[in-house]
């Protein structure tokens, strides 16, 4: 028997999750299919910057206005995913101060608060900033955790009746004459194919949306643009640091939780490579060279990982050469554009505007299926953000303090649900990030965790300085506890976690990173005797 829905969303990034939540809140029967885990594409592979819009103010007024509006909304509805740090746009001697005047003017025009501050004051506010700076502008930038944000949207969507299926890859769009009526999807766990029907199918596949549209015989002219980033081992800066000049490579340093991030590079890549982004030594060198200009201390700071995401840039429909690229939101109603009913593509845009993208998409869905409900996602807080951190903290005073703080920062009000009944549950799995047994169990049970890499996205297990040295093993142990099948799967899972981790470490494997890797090899391959055989029997 095949299930019937109002809407099927393809893609579990921030946009897809946002559409699922918006639909669910408007009473629409919705199914979201994601071929991997949630936030595995570009959503989880960017700066995690809560843009004020200042970066776009000079070059793209429209994006800047969207950003500052969404910035204010996210602070309200996603408080537990956001860190209100503010940001500085610093001018270095080589940049000069002319751009600053243009920049401040453009920010004000877009409604973004931009205060020119004294260089001395800037250095006092952010000691990590390059001390040779000659000018600084303070703007309401911040940090946003894309994993938490997406997970929260998913949780709320489910709470309002949405169905979310991960590790389900859409293999075919089912077409009847000039209408898409459903999808076929492959279930990686059950290893079966399933068919689902709906009035509208939404393509929210990011860069992979190109291929999804192609299944309907439709061309969306996308340009995969790779952006590489580096994560540093501790939090270098407290304010977001930007260069006050035309946007260029490696000119944003964002603090987030316990780390700082520098990025990005920008280069076009072929579609064949988007599933396997590898950061090259040249990219690492460029990021470091430019990053040190923002904050010289980066030269002495340990790098934890290198990674890259792919932006789904979309070429304008009227330019077949593909040169005119918009970074704005692209909502394509294929009924109008291509004469294909029941099919929508939402792409372009950025993490910052995921909610607005979802709103536009859901408005279009409502128009198509005749639903009158209006969007409420800008007003209703996400799960975890309904109460202030202080209120939540009061409720869980009995827990050890560091764990209490870190679990609240990760889960907001949902931290209350983590089992801390006894010392066994409070015992730490991950010491770098203060993740307890209770939190791991909570994530496995309630946050749709299927494996260690999913777990890392939900709880930061393995994201700290040691990059999952011992905690990965401990978490695998907990996952393997349920039954013999789990034990086999958990061991295989551990091997793929180590491969994934190493992929991010190899490009920067010198100094302490290489020391850590040698140690990992001793522990996992030596003491534990794990090998690639385990990878081969992986249940995937």
């Amino acid at each position, binding site marked *: 028997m095949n299930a019937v829905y109002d809407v099927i969303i393809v893609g579990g990034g921030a946009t897809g999750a946002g559409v699922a939540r918006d639909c669910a809140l408007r009473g629409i029967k919705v199914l979201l299919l994601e071929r991997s885990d949630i936030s595995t594409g570009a959503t989880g592979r960017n700066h995690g910057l809560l843009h004020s819009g200042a970066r776009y103010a000079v070059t793209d007024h429209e994006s800047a206005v969207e950003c500052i509006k969404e910035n204010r909304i996210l602070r309200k509805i996603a408080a537990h995913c956001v860190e209100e740090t503010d940001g500085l746009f610093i001018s270095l001697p080589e940049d000069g101060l002319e751009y600053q005047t243009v920049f401040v003017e453009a920010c004000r025009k877009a409604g973004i608060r931009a205060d020119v501050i004294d260089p001395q004051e800037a250095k006092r506010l952010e000691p990590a900033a390059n001390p040779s700076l000659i000018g600084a502008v303070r703007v309401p930038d911040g940090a946003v955790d894309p994993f938490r944000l997406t997970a929260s949207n998913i949780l709320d969507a489910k709470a309002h009746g949405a169905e979310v299926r991960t590790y389900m890859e859409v293999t075919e769009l089912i077409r009847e004459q000039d209408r898409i009526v459903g999808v076929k999807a492959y279930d990686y766990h059950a290893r079966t194919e399933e068919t689902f029907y709906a009035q509208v199918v939404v393509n929210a596949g990011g860069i992979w949306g190109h291929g999804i549209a192609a299944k309907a015989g439709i061309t969306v002219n996308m340009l995969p643009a790779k952006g590489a980033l580096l994560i540093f081992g501790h939090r270098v800066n407290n304010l977001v640091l930007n260069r006050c000049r035309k946007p260029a490579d490696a000119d944003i340093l964002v603090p987030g939780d316990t780390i700082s991030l520098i990025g990005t590079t920008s280069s076009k890549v072929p579609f064949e490579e988007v599933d396997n982004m590898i950061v090259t030594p040249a990219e690492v060198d460029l990021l470091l060279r430019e990053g040190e200009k923002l904050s010289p201390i980066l030269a002495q700071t340990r790098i934890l990982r290198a990674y890259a995401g792919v932006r789904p840039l979309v070429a304008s429909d009227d330019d077949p050469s593909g040169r005119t690229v918009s970074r704005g939101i692209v909502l394509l109603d294929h009924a109008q554009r291509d004469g294909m009913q029941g099919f929508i593509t939402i792409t372009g845009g950025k993490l910052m505007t995921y909610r607005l993208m979802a709103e536009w998409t859901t408005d279009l869905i409502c128009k198509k299926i005749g639903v009158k409900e209006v969007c409420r996602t800008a007003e209703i807080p996400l799960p975890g953000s309904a109460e202030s951190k202080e209120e939540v903290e009061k409720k869980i005073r009995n827990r050890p303090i560091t764990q209490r703080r870190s679990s609240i920062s990760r889960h907001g009000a949902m931290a209350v649900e983590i089992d801390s009944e006894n010392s*066994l549950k409070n015992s730490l799995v991950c010491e770098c990030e203060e993740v307890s047994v209770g939190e791991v169990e909570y994530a496995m049970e309630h946050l749709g965790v299927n494996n260690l890499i999913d777990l890392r996205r939900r709880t930061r297990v393995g994201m700290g300085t040691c990059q999952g040295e*011992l905690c990965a*093993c401990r978490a695998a142990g907990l996952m393997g506890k349920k039954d*013999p099948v789990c034990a086999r799967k958990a061991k295989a899972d551990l091997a793929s976690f180590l491969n994934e981790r*190493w992929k991010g470490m190899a490009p920067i494997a010198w100094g302490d990173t290489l020391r850590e890797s040698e140690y990992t*090899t001793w*522990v996992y391959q030596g003491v534990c*005797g794990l090998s690639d055989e385990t990878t081969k029997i992986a249940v995937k």
Partner: protein
Amino acid sequence: MKFDVVIIGGGLAGMVCGIRLAEAGKKCAIVSQGQSAIHFSSGSFDLLGRMPDGTEVSDPIAAMAELGKIAPEHPYAIMGEKFCAEHLQQAPEILRSAGISVSGDCRKNHFRITPMGKMKPTWLTIDGYLTTASSERLPFEKVCIINVEGFLDFYPEFIAEEFRKQGVVCNFGTINLPDLERIRRNPSEMRSVNIARVFDREENLEVLAAKIREMASGCEAVILPAIIGIGRDDAFDVLKSKVNTPLYLLPTLPPSIPGIKAQQALQHRFRSLGGEYFLGDTVLSAEWKDGRVKELFTANHGDIPFRADHFVLATGSFFSKGLVATPDRIVEPVFGADTVFTPDRAEWYTLRFFDRQNYQAFGVRTDRSLRVVKEGVPIENLYCAGAGLAGFHPVQEGCGAGVSLLSALFVADRILKGE
């Protein structure tokens, strides 16, 4: 301070080299930063588990002869088949003289069981730890695997999953005690060393024995994580005497109790032979004279030099900072010795974690006598032993301990022969 030999590094290689020299009457000093790979020991010492192409080794001596032909830069090949074969009895004797009782045969590997239940070919295993002669047969058909409640660094389910492949029936048991509850109050304290301290207490050992007797009923053997006997040597024997069922230990994730105990035993043995052990000190610089190392200066001893006729570099590889990787080269920080590596960083590794990574075989350049080479010239009185040597993959080939032990003896031999 004047010594016959100063050894830099207090890991397995440095310590065994020091013991051998001290036994022969040399006045030795060991300068140690404090942490070495012994702390992550599996409770076993590997000699040669696999050939470079991955083939499993059954007879290490025969395989070492083969290795000499296909990997001439391997430390075993440099030391030579003859030397290795002659000294393979000396290594376990030195361990035993320090009180580390090990069993094993250099003509036939046995298998150690890992904390995840995997079986790995090895040479010597500390007595008390579970081993098996064949990777296809365990010495029991029904076993009880016991863990301490809430101890996250040992994996009974993983072990059972492997054991069941051989038809072994596995029961599980967990232990809890009021004293354990006390360490649990601090969420990061449930680690092997702290737990072992609890079982150093006679009354807790008694309770543990009683619980094991209860849980072991109907089983042919009982398996415990290595959380016994950190502060006292007899704890495991006492426990065994109170339980009728055969009792075996398995290693845990670090910190490793057998590793820490082995480290202490070797240190004690070295000192009892008159060796001087400088713990927590770091060599900062060396003075040279006529192409020889004259003396060393350390962090703790300021302008008091360590003088010696011979010096041994046993500082290990990357983890213990015997080797330091910068983005474009590999540095040996104490003497600025020449190193063996490929200049292109992209060739240091592959993107698959379980592959043989080239960086693992990087190391200090030596001549065929294991004398350290600097600026292309071997230093007459400076030798290298242990993990800092180039040309081998300690983990993939399962030869890390063997290289450390044999190169330590090789270097001691050269020094004693006055080369």
